[in-house]
Protein backbone atom coordinates (compact mmCIF):
# COMPACT_ATOMS: atom_id res chain seq x y z
CA UNK A 1 0.00 0.00 0.00
CA UNK A 2 0.96 3.60 -0.33
CA UNK A 3 2.82 5.55 2.30
CA UNK A 4 0.85 6.36 5.49
CA UNK A 5 -2.00 4.05 4.51
CA UNK A 6 -2.89 1.41 7.10
CA UNK A 7 -5.89 -0.01 5.30
CA UNK A 8 -8.29 0.41 8.22
CA UNK A 9 -10.33 3.24 6.72
CA UNK A 10 -13.50 2.34 4.87
CA UNK A 11 -15.51 4.40 2.40
CA UNK A 12 -17.30 6.74 2.24
CA UNK A 13 -14.37 8.95 3.22
CA UNK A 14 -14.16 12.39 4.70
CA UNK A 15 -11.72 14.55 2.79
CA UNK A 16 -10.00 17.54 4.34
CA UNK A 17 -8.78 20.27 2.00
CA UNK A 18 -6.19 22.33 3.83
CA UNK A 19 -5.88 25.40 1.70
CA UNK A 20 -3.33 28.08 2.52
CA UNK A 21 -5.28 31.02 1.14
CA UNK A 22 -8.57 30.71 -0.67
CA UNK A 23 -8.98 34.25 -1.97
CA UNK A 24 -6.86 34.31 -5.18
CA UNK A 25 -8.50 33.31 -8.42
CA UNK A 26 -6.07 30.42 -9.01
CA UNK A 27 -7.14 28.96 -5.69
CA UNK A 28 -10.77 29.45 -6.46
CA UNK A 29 -10.40 27.59 -9.77
CA UNK A 30 -8.48 24.85 -8.01
CA UNK A 31 -11.17 24.52 -5.39
CA UNK A 32 -13.67 24.25 -8.24
CA UNK A 33 -11.89 21.18 -9.65
CA UNK A 34 -11.75 19.63 -6.17
CA UNK A 35 -15.44 20.15 -5.56
CA UNK A 36 -16.27 18.69 -8.95
CA UNK A 37 -14.14 15.63 -8.25
CA UNK A 38 -15.70 15.23 -4.80
CA UNK A 39 -19.17 15.35 -6.35
CA UNK A 40 -18.17 12.62 -8.77
CA UNK A 41 -16.74 10.50 -5.93
CA UNK A 42 -19.82 11.11 -3.81
CA UNK A 43 -21.93 9.77 -6.64
CA UNK A 44 -19.83 6.62 -6.54
CA UNK A 45 -20.37 6.38 -2.77
CA UNK A 46 -16.65 6.79 -2.08
CA UNK A 47 -16.68 10.19 -0.40
CA UNK A 48 -19.14 11.48 2.16
CA UNK A 49 -17.90 14.93 2.96
CA UNK A 50 -15.40 17.62 2.05
CA UNK A 51 -14.18 19.91 4.82
CA UNK A 52 -12.30 23.02 3.82
CA UNK A 53 -9.98 25.24 5.81
CA UNK A 54 -8.38 28.48 4.79
CA UNK A 55 -5.23 29.51 6.66
CA UNK A 56 -5.44 33.09 5.34
CA UNK A 57 -1.86 32.86 4.17
CA UNK A 58 -0.47 32.01 7.60
CA UNK A 59 1.58 28.82 7.87
CA UNK A 60 1.07 28.69 11.64
CA UNK A 61 -2.68 28.75 11.27
CA UNK A 62 -2.38 25.98 8.71
CA UNK A 63 -0.57 23.78 11.22
CA UNK A 64 -3.37 24.30 13.70
CA UNK A 65 -5.98 23.53 11.07
CA UNK A 66 -4.22 20.31 10.05
CA UNK A 67 -4.12 19.39 13.74
CA UNK A 68 -7.87 19.97 13.88
CA UNK A 69 -8.32 17.72 10.86
CA UNK A 70 -6.37 15.03 12.67
CA UNK A 71 -8.50 15.59 15.77
CA UNK A 72 -11.64 15.31 13.65
CA UNK A 73 -10.20 12.12 12.19
CA UNK A 74 -10.60 12.91 8.51
CA UNK A 75 -9.56 10.10 6.17
CA UNK A 76 -7.53 12.18 3.77
CA UNK A 77 -5.86 15.57 3.76
CA UNK A 78 -5.10 17.33 0.55
CA UNK A 79 -2.74 20.16 1.07
CA UNK A 80 -1.20 23.22 -0.49
CA UNK A 81 1.45 24.13 2.04
CA UNK A 82 2.00 27.66 3.28
CA UNK A 83 5.61 26.85 3.98
CA UNK A 84 7.86 24.11 2.67
CA UNK A 85 9.13 23.41 6.16
CA UNK A 86 6.46 24.28 8.69
CA UNK A 87 3.84 21.52 8.36
CA UNK A 88 6.37 18.65 8.34
CA UNK A 89 5.88 17.58 11.94
CA UNK A 90 2.11 17.86 12.07
CA UNK A 91 1.97 15.87 8.82
CA UNK A 92 4.08 13.17 10.43
CA UNK A 93 1.43 12.92 13.14
CA UNK A 94 -1.30 12.68 10.52
CA UNK A 95 0.63 10.05 8.61
CA UNK A 96 1.08 8.03 11.78
CA UNK A 97 -2.69 7.94 12.16
CA UNK A 98 -3.11 6.43 8.72
CA UNK A 99 -4.51 9.53 7.08
CA UNK A 100 -3.85 9.74 3.35
CA UNK A 101 -1.96 12.97 2.67
CA UNK A 102 -1.80 14.39 -0.80
CA UNK A 103 0.45 17.39 -1.04
CA UNK A 104 0.35 19.35 -4.29
CA UNK A 105 1.48 22.69 -5.73
CA UNK A 106 3.47 24.04 -2.79
CA UNK A 107 5.28 21.06 -1.37
CA UNK A 108 6.59 20.19 2.05
CA UNK A 109 10.14 18.93 2.65
CA UNK A 110 9.13 15.67 4.28
CA UNK A 111 8.49 12.13 3.16
CA UNK A 112 5.80 11.60 5.79
CA UNK A 113 3.07 12.06 3.22
CA UNK A 114 1.29 9.61 1.00
CA UNK A 115 2.26 11.39 -2.14
CA UNK A 116 3.48 14.68 -3.47
CA UNK A 117 1.98 15.82 -6.69
CA UNK A 118 3.55 18.56 -8.71
CA UNK A 119 5.12 19.76 -11.83
CA UNK A 120 8.89 19.99 -11.58
CA UNK A 121 9.76 23.56 -10.64
CA UNK A 122 13.42 23.22 -11.56
CA UNK A 123 12.48 21.78 -14.91
CA UNK A 124 10.05 24.66 -15.35
CA UNK A 125 12.84 27.16 -14.89
CA UNK A 126 15.22 25.24 -17.10
CA UNK A 127 12.73 24.78 -19.94
CA UNK A 128 11.68 28.40 -19.84
CA UNK A 129 15.29 29.57 -19.94
CA UNK A 130 16.16 27.17 -22.74
CA UNK A 131 13.26 28.34 -24.88
CA UNK A 132 14.02 32.00 -24.24
CA UNK A 133 17.70 31.67 -25.11
CA UNK A 134 16.73 29.82 -28.23
CA UNK A 135 14.22 32.47 -29.20
CA UNK A 136 16.83 35.18 -28.69
CA UNK A 137 19.36 33.41 -30.81
CA UNK A 138 21.66 32.68 -27.90
CA UNK A 139 22.62 36.21 -26.97
CA UNK A 140 21.24 39.42 -25.61
CA UNK A 141 20.09 41.19 -22.45
CA UNK A 142 17.32 39.76 -20.32
CA UNK A 143 15.50 40.62 -17.15
CA UNK A 144 14.26 37.96 -14.79
CA UNK A 145 10.91 38.18 -13.03
CA UNK A 146 10.59 35.99 -9.95
CA UNK A 147 7.74 35.21 -7.62
CA UNK A 148 7.87 36.27 -3.98
CA UNK A 149 11.10 35.96 -2.02
CA UNK A 150 11.50 33.31 0.62
CA UNK A 151 9.09 30.88 -1.04
CA UNK A 152 10.45 27.57 -2.34
CA UNK A 153 8.47 27.35 -5.58
CA UNK A 154 9.80 30.67 -6.76
CA UNK A 155 13.29 29.82 -5.56
CA UNK A 156 13.22 26.38 -7.25
CA UNK A 157 12.16 27.77 -10.60
CA UNK A 158 14.95 30.33 -10.49
CA UNK A 159 17.46 27.67 -9.48
CA UNK A 160 16.36 25.51 -12.41
CA UNK A 161 17.11 28.35 -14.79
CA UNK A 162 20.52 29.13 -13.31
CA UNK A 163 22.69 26.44 -14.98
CA UNK A 164 21.05 27.06 -18.36
CA UNK A 165 21.76 30.77 -18.15
CA UNK A 166 25.28 30.14 -16.90
CA UNK A 167 25.96 27.96 -19.91
CA UNK A 168 25.30 30.92 -22.19
CA UNK A 169 27.80 33.65 -21.45
CA UNK A 170 26.34 35.84 -24.19
CA UNK A 171 23.13 36.13 -22.24
CA UNK A 172 23.39 39.01 -19.84
CA UNK A 173 21.01 39.31 -16.91
CA UNK A 174 20.37 43.01 -16.49
CA UNK A 175 18.45 42.67 -13.30
CA UNK A 176 15.89 40.60 -11.44
CA UNK A 177 12.88 41.32 -9.29
CA UNK A 178 10.79 39.51 -6.75
CA UNK A 179 7.10 40.30 -6.66
CA UNK A 180 3.88 38.51 -5.83
CA UNK A 181 2.66 36.49 -8.84
CA UNK A 182 0.52 39.41 -9.98
CA UNK A 183 0.15 41.83 -12.88
CA UNK A 184 0.44 45.23 -11.24
CA UNK A 185 3.68 44.85 -9.29
CA UNK A 186 5.34 43.20 -12.28
CA UNK A 187 4.19 46.02 -14.55
CA UNK A 188 5.56 48.60 -12.15
CA UNK A 189 8.89 46.84 -11.74
CA UNK A 190 9.36 46.23 -15.47
CA UNK A 191 8.44 49.80 -16.39
CA UNK A 192 11.11 51.10 -14.03
CA UNK A 193 13.61 48.63 -15.48
CA UNK A 194 12.75 49.71 -19.02
CA UNK A 195 13.89 53.23 -18.29
CA UNK A 196 17.11 52.02 -16.75
CA UNK A 197 17.86 49.58 -19.57
CA UNK A 198 17.51 50.75 -23.11
CA UNK A 199 18.28 47.39 -24.67
CA UNK A 200 16.18 44.50 -23.43
CA UNK A 201 16.02 41.45 -25.69
CA UNK A 202 14.07 38.97 -23.65
CA UNK A 203 12.07 38.52 -20.50
CA UNK A 204 12.36 35.43 -18.37
CA UNK A 205 9.16 35.46 -16.39
CA UNK A 206 8.80 32.58 -14.00
CA UNK A 207 5.13 32.19 -13.39
CA UNK A 208 1.84 33.63 -12.37
CA UNK A 209 0.59 36.74 -14.07
CA UNK A 210 4.00 38.41 -14.19
CA UNK A 211 4.22 38.19 -17.97
CA UNK A 212 1.01 40.13 -18.54
CA UNK A 213 2.42 42.89 -16.38
CA UNK A 214 5.64 42.92 -18.37
CA UNK A 215 3.78 43.13 -21.70
CA UNK A 216 1.59 45.93 -20.37
CA UNK A 217 4.75 47.79 -19.44
CA UNK A 218 6.38 47.36 -22.85
CA UNK A 219 3.16 48.29 -24.58
CA UNK A 220 2.57 51.44 -22.57
CA UNK A 221 6.09 52.71 -23.03
CA UNK A 222 5.91 52.00 -26.73
CA UNK A 223 8.80 49.57 -26.60
CA UNK A 224 9.03 46.65 -29.04
CA UNK A 225 7.76 43.32 -27.85
CA UNK A 226 10.48 40.79 -27.02
CA UNK A 227 10.43 37.02 -26.54
CA UNK A 228 8.82 36.25 -23.21
CA UNK A 229 8.02 33.22 -21.10
CA UNK A 230 5.07 32.85 -18.79
CA UNK A 231 2.24 30.86 -17.37
CA UNK A 232 -1.27 30.10 -18.58
CA UNK A 233 -2.92 33.26 -17.23
CA UNK A 234 -5.84 34.08 -19.49
CA UNK A 235 -4.83 37.71 -19.77
CA UNK A 236 -1.32 36.75 -20.92
CA UNK A 237 -2.61 34.31 -23.52
CA UNK A 238 -5.01 36.92 -24.87
CA UNK A 239 -2.20 39.46 -25.21
CA UNK A 240 -0.02 36.84 -26.81
CA UNK A 241 -2.60 36.39 -29.54
CA UNK A 242 -3.57 40.02 -29.97
CA UNK A 243 0.02 41.29 -30.05
CA UNK A 244 1.32 38.33 -31.97
CA UNK A 245 4.03 37.62 -29.46
CA UNK A 246 6.92 35.28 -29.60
CA UNK A 247 6.15 33.50 -26.38
CA UNK A 248 6.16 30.29 -24.45
CA UNK A 249 4.15 29.23 -21.44
CA UNK A 250 3.63 26.30 -19.22
CA UNK A 251 1.31 25.84 -16.30
CA UNK A 252 0.61 24.60 -12.86
CA UNK A 253 -2.69 22.92 -13.84
CA UNK A 254 -5.56 23.67 -11.49
CA UNK A 255 -6.72 20.11 -11.84
CA UNK A 256 -3.86 19.11 -9.55
CA UNK A 257 -6.55 19.61 -6.88
CA UNK A 258 -8.94 17.20 -8.50
CA UNK A 259 -6.12 14.77 -9.08
CA UNK A 260 -4.98 14.94 -5.46
CA UNK A 261 -8.52 14.16 -4.35
CA UNK A 262 -8.77 11.28 -6.76
CA UNK A 263 -5.39 9.92 -5.77
CA UNK A 264 -6.24 10.16 -2.06
CA UNK A 265 -9.29 7.99 -2.53
CA UNK A 266 -7.30 5.56 -4.66
CA UNK A 267 -4.67 5.29 -1.95
CA UNK A 268 -7.26 4.81 0.79
CA UNK A 269 -8.72 1.98 -1.24
CA UNK A 270 -5.39 0.25 -1.16
CA UNK A 271 -4.02 1.19 -4.54
CA UNK A 272 -0.35 1.84 -4.76
CA UNK A 273 0.46 5.49 -5.30
CA UNK A 274 3.96 6.65 -6.13
CA UNK A 275 5.53 8.88 -3.49
CA UNK A 276 6.09 11.56 -6.06
CA UNK A 277 3.75 12.00 -8.96
CA UNK A 278 5.51 14.20 -11.41
CA UNK A 279 3.07 16.04 -13.62
CA UNK A 280 4.53 16.63 -17.06
CA UNK A 281 4.58 20.33 -17.82
CA UNK A 282 1.93 21.08 -20.42
CA UNK A 283 3.59 23.49 -22.84
CA UNK A 284 1.74 26.29 -24.59
CA UNK A 285 3.49 27.46 -27.72
CA UNK A 286 2.57 29.52 -30.75
CA UNK A 287 1.30 26.27 -32.21
CA UNK A 288 -1.38 25.52 -29.64
CA UNK A 289 -2.13 28.82 -27.95
CA UNK A 290 -5.23 29.08 -30.14
CA UNK A 291 -6.66 25.89 -28.68
CA UNK A 292 -6.37 27.30 -25.19
CA UNK A 293 -7.87 30.62 -26.15
CA UNK A 294 -10.83 28.87 -27.74
CA UNK A 295 -11.85 27.78 -24.24
CA UNK A 296 -11.17 31.15 -22.67
CA UNK A 297 -14.83 31.95 -22.08
CA UNK A 298 -15.07 29.10 -19.56
CA UNK A 299 -12.52 30.76 -17.31
CA UNK A 300 -12.50 33.94 -15.26
CA UNK A 301 -10.96 36.98 -16.92
CA UNK A 302 -8.22 37.09 -14.30
CA UNK A 303 -7.96 33.32 -14.15
CA UNK A 304 -5.84 30.55 -15.64
CA UNK A 305 -6.80 28.42 -18.65
CA UNK A 306 -5.81 24.92 -17.74
CA UNK A 307 -5.44 21.86 -19.90
CA UNK A 308 -8.25 19.30 -19.98
CA UNK A 309 -8.26 16.38 -17.56
CA UNK A 310 -10.10 13.14 -17.00
CA UNK A 311 -10.00 10.08 -14.77
CA UNK A 312 -8.16 8.37 -17.61
CA UNK A 313 -5.37 10.93 -17.39
CA UNK A 314 -5.28 10.52 -13.61
CA UNK A 315 -4.97 6.73 -13.84
CA UNK A 316 -2.20 7.14 -16.35
CA UNK A 317 -0.32 9.56 -14.07
CA UNK A 318 -0.72 7.21 -11.12
CA UNK A 319 0.58 4.32 -13.15
CA UNK A 320 3.92 5.99 -13.86
CA UNK A 321 6.84 4.76 -11.86
Amino acid sequence: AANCIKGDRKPPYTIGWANIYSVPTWMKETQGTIEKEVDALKAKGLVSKLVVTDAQGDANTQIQQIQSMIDANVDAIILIAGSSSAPARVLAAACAKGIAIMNFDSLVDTDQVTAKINTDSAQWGAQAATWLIDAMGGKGNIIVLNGPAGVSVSDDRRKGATPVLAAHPDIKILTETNTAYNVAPAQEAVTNLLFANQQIDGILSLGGALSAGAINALDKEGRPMVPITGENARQFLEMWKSKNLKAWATMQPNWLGAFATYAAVQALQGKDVPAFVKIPLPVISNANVGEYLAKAGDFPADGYIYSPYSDGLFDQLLAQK
Partner: protein
Amino acid sequence: MTSPTERFAAARWQAVLRSRPMLTVAMVALAWIGASFFQPGFGGWRHLRYLLELAAIVGLVSIGQTLVVVAGGIDLSVGAIVTVSAIGVPLVTWLADPTGTAPALFILLCATLIGALNGLGIALLRVHPMIMTLAMATFLQGVLILIAGGSAISAQNAVLSWLGNARPGGISASVLLWLLASAIALWLLHKTPFGARLFALGTNPLATSLSGIGVRSTTIAVYAISGFTAGLAGALVLGVNGQGYVGIGDSYLLASIASVVLGGTSILGGRGTYAGTIPGAILLVTITALITMLNASAGWRNILFGTLIMALLLLSGRERQRR
Protein backbone atom coordinates in the same frame (compact mmCIF):
# COMPACT_ATOMS: atom_id res chain seq x y z
CA MET B 1 -7.44 97.69 21.13
CA THR B 2 -4.38 95.95 19.81
CA SER B 3 -3.35 95.77 16.21
CA PRO B 4 -3.76 92.52 14.28
CA THR B 5 -0.10 92.38 13.31
CA GLU B 6 0.88 92.38 16.97
CA ARG B 7 -1.49 89.53 17.77
CA PHE B 8 -0.77 87.51 14.66
CA ALA B 9 2.91 87.08 14.00
CA ALA B 10 3.22 86.99 10.24
CA ALA B 11 4.21 83.63 8.83
CA ARG B 12 7.64 84.23 7.39
CA TRP B 13 8.77 82.79 4.12
CA GLN B 14 11.73 81.16 5.82
CA ALA B 15 9.27 79.22 7.96
CA VAL B 16 7.45 78.00 4.86
CA LEU B 17 10.73 76.89 3.34
CA ARG B 18 11.61 75.04 6.52
CA SER B 19 8.22 73.35 6.82
CA ARG B 20 7.79 69.61 6.63
CA PRO B 21 6.22 69.54 3.15
CA MET B 22 9.06 71.60 1.72
CA LEU B 23 11.55 69.29 3.35
CA THR B 24 9.91 66.35 1.63
CA VAL B 25 9.92 68.19 -1.69
CA ALA B 26 13.62 68.81 -1.23
CA MET B 27 14.22 65.15 -0.55
CA VAL B 28 12.33 64.19 -3.72
CA ALA B 29 14.40 66.64 -5.75
CA LEU B 30 17.57 65.30 -4.20
CA ALA B 31 16.58 61.70 -4.90
CA TRP B 32 15.72 62.51 -8.51
CA ILE B 33 18.89 64.45 -9.19
CA GLY B 34 21.08 61.92 -7.44
CA ALA B 35 19.45 58.99 -9.19
CA SER B 36 19.75 60.62 -12.61
CA PHE B 37 23.50 60.78 -12.16
CA PHE B 38 23.97 57.24 -11.02
CA GLN B 39 21.24 55.52 -12.99
CA PRO B 40 21.12 56.36 -16.68
CA GLY B 41 17.57 56.65 -17.89
CA PHE B 42 16.17 57.52 -14.49
CA GLY B 43 15.90 61.25 -14.91
CA GLY B 44 14.21 61.27 -18.30
CA TRP B 45 10.93 63.13 -18.59
CA ARG B 46 9.08 59.99 -19.57
CA HIS B 47 10.31 58.10 -16.54
CA LEU B 48 9.56 60.92 -14.18
CA ARG B 49 6.12 61.15 -15.70
CA TYR B 50 5.70 57.43 -15.11
CA LEU B 51 6.72 57.83 -11.48
CA LEU B 52 4.12 60.57 -11.15
CA GLU B 53 1.49 58.22 -12.59
CA LEU B 54 2.40 55.63 -9.96
CA ALA B 55 2.38 58.30 -7.31
CA ALA B 56 -1.03 59.45 -8.44
CA ILE B 57 -2.62 56.19 -7.36
CA VAL B 58 -0.75 56.10 -4.06
CA GLY B 59 -1.58 59.77 -3.65
CA LEU B 60 -5.29 59.23 -4.15
CA VAL B 61 -5.40 56.48 -1.52
CA SER B 62 -3.37 58.75 0.73
CA ILE B 63 -5.95 61.53 0.58
CA GLY B 64 -8.30 59.51 2.71
CA GLN B 65 -5.43 58.16 4.78
CA THR B 66 -4.12 61.69 5.47
CA LEU B 67 -7.52 62.95 6.56
CA VAL B 68 -8.07 59.90 8.74
CA VAL B 69 -4.63 60.17 10.33
CA VAL B 70 -5.09 63.90 10.94
CA ALA B 71 -8.34 63.01 12.67
CA GLY B 72 -6.40 60.68 14.97
CA GLY B 73 -7.28 57.40 13.29
CA ILE B 74 -5.83 55.02 10.75
CA ASP B 75 -7.44 53.08 7.93
CA LEU B 76 -6.07 49.58 7.41
CA SER B 77 -8.84 48.65 4.99
CA VAL B 78 -7.76 50.89 2.09
CA GLY B 79 -5.90 48.05 0.37
CA ALA B 80 -8.94 45.80 0.48
CA ILE B 81 -11.18 48.62 -0.75
CA VAL B 82 -8.86 49.28 -3.71
CA THR B 83 -9.14 45.60 -4.61
CA VAL B 84 -12.89 45.49 -4.19
CA SER B 85 -13.26 48.51 -6.42
CA ALA B 86 -10.87 47.26 -9.11
CA ILE B 87 -12.64 43.91 -9.24
CA GLY B 88 -16.09 45.30 -8.76
CA VAL B 89 -16.38 47.69 -11.69
CA PRO B 90 -16.42 45.01 -14.40
CA LEU B 91 -18.88 42.99 -12.36
CA VAL B 92 -21.64 45.59 -12.35
CA THR B 93 -22.59 44.66 -15.86
CA TRP B 94 -26.27 45.34 -15.31
CA LEU B 95 -25.52 49.05 -15.34
CA ALA B 96 -25.11 49.07 -19.09
CA ASP B 97 -23.44 52.31 -20.07
CA PRO B 98 -21.16 52.62 -23.09
CA THR B 99 -19.01 55.26 -21.38
CA GLY B 100 -18.58 53.08 -18.32
CA THR B 101 -19.44 55.96 -16.01
CA ALA B 102 -22.42 54.34 -14.33
CA PRO B 103 -20.60 51.23 -13.08
CA ALA B 104 -17.68 53.35 -11.90
CA LEU B 105 -19.98 55.67 -9.96
CA PHE B 106 -21.84 52.74 -8.51
CA ILE B 107 -18.63 51.17 -7.21
CA LEU B 108 -17.48 54.50 -5.82
CA LEU B 109 -20.73 54.63 -3.91
CA CYS B 110 -20.10 51.14 -2.56
CA ALA B 111 -16.55 52.07 -1.52
CA THR B 112 -17.88 55.15 0.24
CA LEU B 113 -20.43 53.05 2.07
CA ILE B 114 -17.76 50.58 3.15
CA GLY B 115 -15.79 53.50 4.53
CA ALA B 116 -18.87 54.86 6.27
CA LEU B 117 -19.38 51.45 7.82
CA ASN B 118 -15.84 51.69 9.24
CA GLY B 119 -16.77 55.07 10.63
CA LEU B 120 -19.97 53.73 12.15
CA GLY B 121 -18.09 50.98 13.96
CA ILE B 122 -15.50 53.42 15.23
CA ALA B 123 -17.91 56.18 16.21
CA LEU B 124 -20.87 54.21 17.52
CA LEU B 125 -19.41 50.92 18.70
CA ARG B 126 -16.24 52.74 19.80
CA VAL B 127 -13.98 50.10 18.30
CA HIS B 128 -10.42 51.33 17.83
CA PRO B 129 -9.82 52.31 14.19
CA MET B 130 -6.96 49.86 13.82
CA ILE B 131 -9.19 47.00 14.87
CA MET B 132 -12.31 48.13 13.04
CA THR B 133 -10.57 48.66 9.72
CA LEU B 134 -8.54 45.48 10.12
CA ALA B 135 -11.72 43.52 10.74
CA MET B 136 -13.27 45.25 7.74
CA ALA B 137 -10.33 44.14 5.59
CA THR B 138 -10.82 40.56 6.81
CA PHE B 139 -14.53 40.84 6.10
CA LEU B 140 -13.87 42.16 2.60
CA GLN B 141 -11.58 39.17 1.98
CA GLY B 142 -14.61 37.00 2.62
CA VAL B 143 -16.59 39.07 0.14
CA LEU B 144 -13.77 38.68 -2.37
CA ILE B 145 -13.94 34.90 -2.12
CA LEU B 146 -17.54 35.21 -3.21
CA ILE B 147 -16.93 37.55 -6.13
CA ALA B 148 -13.31 36.86 -7.12
CA GLY B 149 -12.92 34.91 -10.30
CA GLY B 150 -16.63 35.38 -10.68
CA SER B 151 -16.15 35.41 -14.44
CA ALA B 152 -15.40 39.09 -14.64
CA ILE B 153 -16.10 39.38 -18.33
CA SER B 154 -14.23 42.63 -18.45
CA ALA B 155 -16.17 44.83 -20.74
CA GLN B 156 -13.53 47.50 -21.16
CA ASN B 157 -14.53 50.52 -19.18
CA ALA B 158 -14.08 53.53 -21.45
CA VAL B 159 -13.86 56.27 -18.83
CA LEU B 160 -11.48 54.39 -16.62
CA SER B 161 -9.15 53.27 -19.35
CA TRP B 162 -9.02 56.85 -20.60
CA LEU B 163 -8.15 57.99 -17.09
CA GLY B 164 -5.58 55.25 -16.73
CA ASN B 165 -3.87 55.64 -20.07
CA ALA B 166 -4.57 58.94 -21.80
CA ARG B 167 -1.96 61.68 -21.80
CA PRO B 168 -3.69 64.82 -23.03
CA GLY B 169 -1.03 67.40 -23.87
CA GLY B 170 1.68 65.00 -22.73
CA ILE B 171 0.43 65.03 -19.16
CA SER B 172 -1.13 61.88 -17.84
CA ALA B 173 -4.86 61.99 -17.20
CA SER B 174 -4.31 60.17 -13.90
CA VAL B 175 -1.93 62.88 -12.75
CA LEU B 176 -4.46 65.54 -13.71
CA LEU B 177 -7.10 63.69 -11.72
CA TRP B 178 -4.72 63.58 -8.80
CA LEU B 179 -4.05 67.31 -9.07
CA LEU B 180 -7.75 68.03 -9.01
CA ALA B 181 -8.35 65.70 -6.09
CA SER B 182 -5.38 67.21 -4.23
CA ALA B 183 -6.77 70.69 -4.63
CA ILE B 184 -10.10 69.56 -3.23
CA ALA B 185 -8.40 67.72 -0.38
CA LEU B 186 -6.29 70.72 0.56
CA TRP B 187 -9.32 72.97 0.45
CA LEU B 188 -11.32 70.56 2.59
CA LEU B 189 -8.58 70.18 5.14
CA HIS B 190 -7.49 73.78 5.54
CA LYS B 191 -10.31 75.97 4.35
CA THR B 192 -13.48 74.43 5.73
CA PRO B 193 -14.90 73.94 9.21
CA PHE B 194 -14.98 70.23 8.42
CA GLY B 195 -11.21 70.19 8.03
CA ALA B 196 -10.78 72.11 11.27
CA ARG B 197 -12.96 69.53 13.00
CA LEU B 198 -10.60 66.80 11.80
CA PHE B 199 -7.63 68.57 13.37
CA ALA B 200 -9.59 69.11 16.57
CA LEU B 201 -10.65 65.48 16.70
CA GLY B 202 -7.13 64.24 16.13
CA THR B 203 -5.69 66.49 18.80
CA ASN B 204 -8.11 65.90 21.64
CA PRO B 205 -11.34 63.97 21.03
CA LEU B 206 -12.73 64.64 24.50
CA ALA B 207 -12.26 68.39 24.32
CA THR B 208 -13.60 68.31 20.78
CA SER B 209 -16.76 66.59 21.83
CA LEU B 210 -17.27 68.93 24.78
CA SER B 211 -16.81 71.85 22.39
CA GLY B 212 -19.95 70.84 20.57
CA ILE B 213 -18.38 69.30 17.49
CA GLY B 214 -20.29 66.27 16.25
CA VAL B 215 -17.57 63.71 16.79
CA ARG B 216 -19.65 60.85 15.46
CA SER B 217 -20.70 62.50 12.23
CA THR B 218 -17.17 63.77 11.65
CA THR B 219 -15.71 60.32 12.20
CA ILE B 220 -18.19 58.63 9.91
CA ALA B 221 -17.61 61.26 7.24
CA VAL B 222 -13.83 61.02 7.31
CA TYR B 223 -13.82 57.24 6.96
CA ALA B 224 -16.38 57.52 4.19
CA ILE B 225 -14.04 59.91 2.41
CA SER B 226 -11.22 57.44 2.88
CA GLY B 227 -13.40 54.71 1.40
CA PHE B 228 -14.22 57.00 -1.50
CA THR B 229 -10.62 57.90 -2.33
CA ALA B 230 -9.52 54.28 -2.00
CA GLY B 231 -12.38 53.32 -4.31
CA LEU B 232 -11.34 56.02 -6.75
CA ALA B 233 -7.78 54.73 -6.68
CA GLY B 234 -9.10 51.20 -7.27
CA ALA B 235 -11.03 52.37 -10.30
CA LEU B 236 -7.90 54.06 -11.60
CA VAL B 237 -5.86 50.91 -10.97
CA LEU B 238 -8.40 49.03 -13.07
CA GLY B 239 -8.00 51.62 -15.80
CA VAL B 240 -4.20 51.38 -15.76
CA ASN B 241 -4.04 47.59 -15.67
CA GLY B 242 -7.06 46.89 -17.82
CA GLN B 243 -8.04 44.29 -15.26
CA GLY B 244 -8.46 43.86 -11.57
CA TYR B 245 -7.53 40.82 -9.55
CA VAL B 246 -7.45 39.76 -5.95
CA GLY B 247 -4.50 41.30 -4.17
CA ILE B 248 -4.11 44.23 -6.57
CA GLY B 249 -4.72 46.71 -3.75
CA ASP B 250 -2.52 45.09 -1.11
CA SER B 251 0.53 47.24 -1.68
CA TYR B 252 -1.40 50.50 -1.28
CA LEU B 253 -1.97 50.06 2.44
CA LEU B 254 1.62 50.43 3.56
CA ALA B 255 2.33 52.85 0.74
CA SER B 256 -0.43 55.19 1.89
CA ILE B 257 0.71 55.13 5.51
CA ALA B 258 4.34 55.59 4.53
CA SER B 259 3.64 58.57 2.29
CA VAL B 260 1.52 60.22 4.96
CA VAL B 261 4.34 59.86 7.46
CA LEU B 262 7.11 60.84 5.04
CA GLY B 263 5.05 63.94 4.32
CA GLY B 264 5.39 64.98 7.92
CA THR B 265 1.85 64.37 9.10
CA SER B 266 1.88 63.19 12.69
CA ILE B 267 0.81 59.58 12.94
CA LEU B 268 -0.55 60.52 16.37
CA GLY B 269 -3.10 62.81 14.79
CA GLY B 270 -3.94 66.47 14.97
CA ARG B 271 -1.04 67.81 12.96
CA GLY B 272 -0.20 67.60 9.30
CA THR B 273 -1.19 68.48 5.80
CA TYR B 274 -1.91 66.77 2.53
CA ALA B 275 0.61 69.16 1.00
CA GLY B 276 3.27 66.95 2.58
CA THR B 277 1.67 63.71 1.54
CA ILE B 278 1.94 64.67 -2.14
CA PRO B 279 5.75 64.76 -2.18
CA GLY B 280 5.65 61.87 0.32
CA ALA B 281 3.93 59.66 -2.24
CA ILE B 282 6.35 60.71 -4.96
CA LEU B 283 9.29 60.05 -2.66
CA LEU B 284 7.99 56.60 -1.86
CA VAL B 285 7.53 55.48 -5.48
CA THR B 286 10.94 56.94 -6.27
CA ILE B 287 12.62 54.89 -3.57
CA THR B 288 10.77 51.80 -4.71
CA ALA B 289 11.83 52.40 -8.31
CA LEU B 290 15.45 52.93 -7.32
CA ILE B 291 15.53 49.74 -5.33
CA THR B 292 13.89 47.82 -8.17
CA MET B 293 16.63 48.99 -10.49
CA LEU B 294 19.35 47.72 -8.18
CA ASN B 295 20.47 44.22 -8.93
CA ALA B 296 20.41 42.95 -5.38
CA SER B 297 18.91 39.96 -3.61
CA ALA B 298 15.51 40.25 -2.03
CA GLY B 299 17.05 40.34 1.44
CA TRP B 300 19.30 43.29 0.63
CA ARG B 301 16.50 45.13 -1.12
CA ASN B 302 14.38 44.84 2.03
CA ILE B 303 17.21 46.04 4.23
CA LEU B 304 17.93 48.97 1.95
CA PHE B 305 14.28 49.99 1.81
CA GLY B 306 13.90 49.82 5.59
CA THR B 307 17.12 51.74 6.17
CA LEU B 308 16.16 54.45 3.69
CA ILE B 309 12.75 54.91 5.28
CA MET B 310 14.35 55.08 8.70
CA ALA B 311 16.88 57.66 7.50
CA LEU B 312 14.21 59.79 5.84
CA LEU B 313 12.17 59.61 9.02
CA LEU B 314 15.07 61.04 10.94
CA LEU B 315 14.91 64.00 8.59
CA SER B 316 11.18 64.48 8.29
CA GLY B 317 9.39 62.50 10.93
CA ARG B 318 10.84 63.80 14.18
CA GLU B 319 7.95 63.96 16.50
CA ARG B 320 7.95 65.89 19.70
CA GLN B 321 6.85 63.40 22.30
CA ARG B 322 3.42 64.33 23.39
CA ARG B 323 0.23 62.88 24.59
